[in-house]
């Protein structure tokens, strides 16, 4: 499996083709000082603009994507001083229906910061991390993939 990682004691950013495990994210952000952990999981859903979808296919400008993800993680810690740890994973390549393409977890003493930080993180990820999806579905018995 191909992968890129940026890791510090309080941040874990990961980009690669292996299947994502939510527990890897929640385990990383676990901390005795944490009273709250907020998690966002993005999964391939079986439809897109009314059409049946069989899988998504992700590509990235990998080095820059990991850099931007790590920067977003650092910004969460700067903006919400109480945030303890951040994990941010994005999968590349084929992602079947029901499988996660993105997992973000944030821990903090109280819930407000963790919830707000995760919301901010997924919005920033979509806005500025250079990752693109192709949506693949069957059209007239042939698999058709379209860049979005």
């Amino acid at each position, binding site marked *: 499996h191909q992968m890129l990682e940026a890791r510090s004691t309080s941040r874990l950013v990961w980009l690669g083709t292996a299947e994502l495990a939510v527990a890897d994210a929640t385990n990383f952000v676990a901390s005795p000082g944490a009273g709250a952990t907020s998690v966002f999981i993005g999964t391939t859903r079986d439809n897109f603009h009314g059409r049946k979808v069989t899988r998504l296919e992700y590509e990235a*400008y990998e080095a820059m994507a990991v850099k931007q993800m790590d920067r977003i993680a650092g910004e969460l810690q700067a903006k919400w001083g109480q945030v303890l740890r951040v994990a941010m994973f994005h999968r590349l390549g084929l992602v079947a229906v029901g499988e996660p*393409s993105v997992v973000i977890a944030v821990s903090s003493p109280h819930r407000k910061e963790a919830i707000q930080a995760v919301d901010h993180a*997924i919005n920033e990820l*979509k806005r500025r991390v*250079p990752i693109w999806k192709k949506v693949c579905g069957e059209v007239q018995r042939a698999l058709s993939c379209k860049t979005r």
Partner: protein
Amino acid sequence: SVTTVPVRVLCFARAREVVGASELLVGLAPNASPRSVLAALAEAHPGLAEIRSLVIALNEEYVDMEQPMDLKPNDELALIPPMSGG
């Protein structure tokens, strides 16, 4: 005569499909702006002009589309169409 520097241009997603290659090697004026680079590339690959909100990164960082860059040989530009991660 204008001196040019050799620069790599990475093409992603729709930009790669339009260009038909994931990487181009081009000679650019050192003080070219991203906007002018895009215009030059769109002459050879007209489809690039049709990608709305395409931006350019220089050495893995976003840069102002209108500001002259300070390009060095082997710098890495990237064509970044609207992103769709998540």
